[in-house]
């Protein structure tokens, strides 16, 4: 083979390679859905009562969990999960440090954090799911899961940057579980169970824009002063909770992180202490993975072109060498017969 052929072939193959001069192939980041709803969780208001956890279980018809070891006193009536699981969509965890003397202090202090799906603006789980079992509502932006479509590949579990979706490994018919912001209650005109029962307004439901404004109001208030905090749903006529303004980290988590989230956090301790990743880009990871895919497969033009080139080269090279080719020549073909065949074919 001749250098020219080689170059031609290489050119065809190069069409397949993600040859890039740029640092990043990016697809456009997704923007906040028009009627985005979500939640504001304020760690400084949370008293760790876990009312939201039991309300979540009840609202989603989930069984209580026992501690994996010990807990003889617990015959199964107490819900004592240690982490999110396929049957625990929401969990309150405590951050503790040193003497644990004071709440919402990073050193020698403690703080609470509520863990569940953040309903990302550009969710990795949705981008990863091969069969559309993870779905982001185009209007409200809520990320829901449909087990009847799910093939159980667990790519959503693998890819979620917050470690939210969970799979039941000890069930032959296991399924994925995660918070869906109580879409079933919303459909009946209700609000998420966890926000409904929260006594302090630490979990607050509402339209994302209003929640962001509320967060701004809290961040702007002077620490130590008294402020009224709405409860349940923002803008509802529930009595407010009057409390002292905490010493906030001056940032609303979820405002920018990974392209934004519809569940957002305020905290007195740095967010990474609460297990929220802070060293992350302002765009979701799907912008990068889909950036690669869209560059290579836009309209399937690249693969079609490549296939065309491959068909051309394969056909030509086969014709040239057919007599010698084990995929084409019968073992019992006589030499001249093969030569004749080649003649006829070309």
């Amino acid at each position, binding site marked *: 083979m001749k250098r020219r052929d080689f170059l031609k072939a290489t050119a065809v193959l190069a069409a397949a390679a993600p040859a*890039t001069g740029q640092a990043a*192939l990016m697809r456009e980041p997704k923007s906040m859905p028009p009627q985005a709803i979500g939640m504001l969780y304020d760690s400084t208001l949370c008293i760790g009562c876990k009312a939201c956890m039991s309300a979540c279980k009840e609202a989603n018809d989930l069984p209580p969990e026992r501690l994996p070891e010990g807990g003889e006193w617990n015959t199964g009536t107490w819900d004592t999960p240690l982490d999110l699981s396929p049957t625990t969509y929401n969990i309150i965890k405590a951050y503790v440090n040193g003497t644990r003397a004071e709440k919402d202090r990073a050193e020698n202090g403690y703080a609470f954090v509520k863990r569940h799906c953040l309903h990302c603006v550009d969710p990795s789980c949705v981008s990863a*799911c091969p069969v559309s079992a993870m779905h982001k509502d185009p209007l409200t932006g809520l990320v829901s899961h449909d087990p009847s479509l*799910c093939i159980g*590949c667990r790519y959503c579990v693998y890819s979620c940057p917050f470690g939210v979706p969970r799979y039941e490994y*000890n069930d032959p018919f296991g399924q994925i579980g995660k918070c869906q912001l109580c879409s079933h209650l919303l459909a009946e005109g209700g609000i998420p169970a966890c926000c409904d029962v929260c006594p302090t307004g630490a979990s607050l439901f509402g339209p994302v824009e209003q929640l962001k404004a509320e967060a701004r109001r809290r961040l702007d208030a002077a620490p130590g002063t008294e402020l009224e905090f709405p409860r349940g749903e923002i803008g509802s006529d529930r009595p407010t909770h009057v409390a002292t303004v905490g010493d906030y980290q001056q940032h609303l988590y979820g405002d920018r992180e990974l392209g934004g989230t519809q569940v957002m956090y305020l905290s007195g301790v740095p967010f990474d202490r609460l297990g929220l990743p802070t060293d*992350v880009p302002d765009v979701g990871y799907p912008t990068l993975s889909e950036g*690669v895919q869209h560059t290579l497969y836009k309209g399937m033009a690249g693969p079609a072109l490549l296939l065309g080139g491959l068909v051309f080269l*394969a056909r030509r090279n086969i014709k040239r060498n057919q007599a010698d080719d*084990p995929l084409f020549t019968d073992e019992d073909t006589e030499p001249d017969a093969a030569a004749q065949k080649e003649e006829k074919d070309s």
Partner: protein
Amino acid sequence: MSAHAHAPVGGRLVTAPFLVLAFLAAIALALLAGRFVYGLGAVTNLNDGYPWGIWVIIDIVIGTAFGCAGYAVSLIVYILNRGEYHPIVRSAVMASLFGYTLAGIAVMFDLGRYWNFYNLFLPWYAQPNSVMWEIALCVAGYITVLWIEFAPTFLERFGLHNAREKLSRVLFIIIALGVLLPTMHQSSLGTAIVILGHKVSPLWQTQFLPLLYLSSAILMGLALVPFESVLSALGLRRQLETGLMGRLNRVILAVGAIFLAVRLGDLLFRGALGHALAGDLQANMFLLESALFIGGLALLARQQARRSARAQFVAAVTLLMAGILFRINSYLVGYEPVNGTWHYFPSVPEMLVTVGIFSIEILLYLVFVKKLPVLAKHA
């Protein structure tokens, strides 16, 4: 006439290795029964921190890279027009056939909700942004292509010359697809990591993963050829194909050089090389992986070595190990789950299932080369 006709090797089928392999396969099947009765957790150590274990990373990601022999050789023979490699086309295609078919089967028992798997093929549920969806479709397509590519061997064995003649006329399309599909999904196996974002160490997380996965898959596919040639020469008492392999090793060297250039260039460009000296498990595994790549290629760089069967074999094994480690590192070692302390090391039953899968592959190889005209006859 074709200078390298193929013939069944013949000989007894039920030998000692055959029985050992069959035994290992039987164990795997028994363990898999447990998986279907009690769930994935009963057999594997999978958890929500490590939702993908060796059944995905070894059986599928590495298994199909091994299965790239047919792809890599077809690429050289049919696209780059290197006819001299014809004698190895058939056995290479067969290696791919087994690698991919078994990976396809492995998917089925790793899927947590396997009974829904057909949703992958229903256009109205398709999610084309999902790298996984693309991989699934390409792999399914390629398994079909491989069986058609290998069909002449069957047709020949059973004397169906007419069917064979007809197939020959369209085989070029199948061969072209057989190059396109692996190009797509082998690179996508790298892209699949991109969405894991900060969970994967900068030593592996890069948008160049598709190119790195593609080039290292070709490298592994090619390295498998001298590996298999030496083993079958020893095991089946056949003559060594050292001359041909020597030339093939030049190609291996070139592909490996491309991989290394991209790999190191990318690390330098992103300023991630510092992580390599952190002294932790990830850093050390990175160093080991790189040493294997560089060492294997350095062995082949000397012309002298390319002519010796022993050096070729050692180089092939080193490069295969390098490719394996690159895959294990980028999916497992370089990956850190968020929130909480998670551990994963495959359970013994989990490993036995993987061993069983590879045993079936070798078993099929033995049956096929003994009964079908796969290996080149020697004059």
